[in-house]
């Protein structure tokens, strides 16, 4: 029985991972970014104790997430639909794919810089998180729509 309760969520997870389309995948990747940055941000604000190794691991997770974010697949021409959850990809992405990709590159550069910096205390972490957060907002300003 115990084995079953463990296996069921694992199966469910595998099913989602295997069958999810680009729309679900990109939403999952974006959600993961938010959660990781959220956890890091608590450390920068002093709400969670600073642990250099854990912080670096999370910054590396952010970088791995960025590497998985393949725009050509996740925002392919036939992936314009949305799951209907708020908020969602704006049609402007497909009207200006080059501009969208440029925003993502700026975000990835900010993440890479944070990993290289390997912050040694909360203040240093705050200094590398600032530019990352700014890029989140810069892209959402143009390429995301809210559906209340």
């Amino acid at each position, binding site marked *: 029985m115990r084995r079953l309760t463990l296996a069921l969520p694992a199966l469910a997870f595998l099913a989602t991972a295997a069958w999810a389309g680009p729309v679900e995948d990109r939403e999952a990747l974006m959600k993961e970014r*938010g959660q990781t940055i*959220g956890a890091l*941000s608590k450390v920068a604000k002093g709400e969670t104790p600073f642990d250099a190794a854990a912080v670096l691991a999370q910054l590396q997770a952010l970088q791995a997430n960025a590497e998985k974010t393949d725009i050509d697949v996740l925002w392919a021409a036939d992936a314009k639909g949305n799951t209907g959850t708020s908020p969602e990809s704006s049609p402007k992405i497909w009207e200006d794919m080059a501009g969208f990709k440029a925003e993502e590159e700026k975000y990835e550069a900010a993440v890479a810089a944070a990993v290289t910096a390997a912050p040694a205390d909360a203040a240093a972490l705050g200094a590398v998180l600032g530019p990352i*957060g700014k890029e989140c907002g810069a892209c959402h300003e143009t390429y995301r*729509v*809210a559906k209340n």
Partner: protein
Amino acid sequence: MARRRVLGVLIVLAVAAAAAGWFLSAPQRLDAGELAALGEGDAARGERIFWAGGCASCHSAPKSEGEARLELGGGAPLVTPFGSFVPPNISPDPADGIGGWSKEDFANAMLRGVAPDGSHLYPAFPYPSYVRMKPSDIGDLYAFMRTLPQVSGKAAPNDIGFPFNIRRGLGLWKLLFLDPAPVIALEEAAGAEVAAGQYLVEGPGHCGECHTPRTLFGAGGSDKSRWLAGAPAAVGDGRVPNITPAKLTWSAAEIASYLKDGFTPEFDTAGGEMVNVVKNIGHLSDEDRTAIAAYLKAVPARE
């Protein structure tokens, strides 16, 4: 004979209606007493009003950061179903901006929606909210804006279709929709913090211009029975969210924090026009942001 008399009466009535319309749509300027209340103007105090008023969102170049947000040479057009409204140059440049405007000219624009030449301004410029501002804040804002860099170059003209291109008609719009009274009747017991937040939200912050639906199929004023309950975006796609307690369930501290750095409690970020709003409100004090949050928790919940 009878037919001629009917025609004559009709002409008289039409002329009378036109005269009444002309009379009613005349620009209403501030009177001497109101102008005296503008005071001397203090640029240091005016900076706070500048950020609260969000001038840079529309009047600086799109996506401006830092010092560039103080260069008010005009911004991206607001493309709406009524036409394209181009935010003009409001830098102190004497030829292309508003450097030639007196404090009284500025106050008539902010509090009455009237340009120095006597024409009506379109309410794409959010004077229906600014009309609730204290005259002394207008005087301070004028003093601050005189200190900003002069930017040369006039913005392009508006591109608005008939009949909205007849500015005189805005006089009638103002009679119906321009109202300096507070939107929400707060109990005295609500306290000073909520009242301070009310002033910032309903006045300079002009939050209701986007977060409240409009009457007359979007052409009217704010529908006060649906105050801050969310509305179709006037510019671009999607909806502007409901920020009454019915939908905005964040704590006051979370709202204040979001207005400072743009991160939601789930560490999502502000999007769309709200990115600009955070860039402005982020300049205010924690006290001002806390007051805004307290007011948002106090407004009536609307589904």
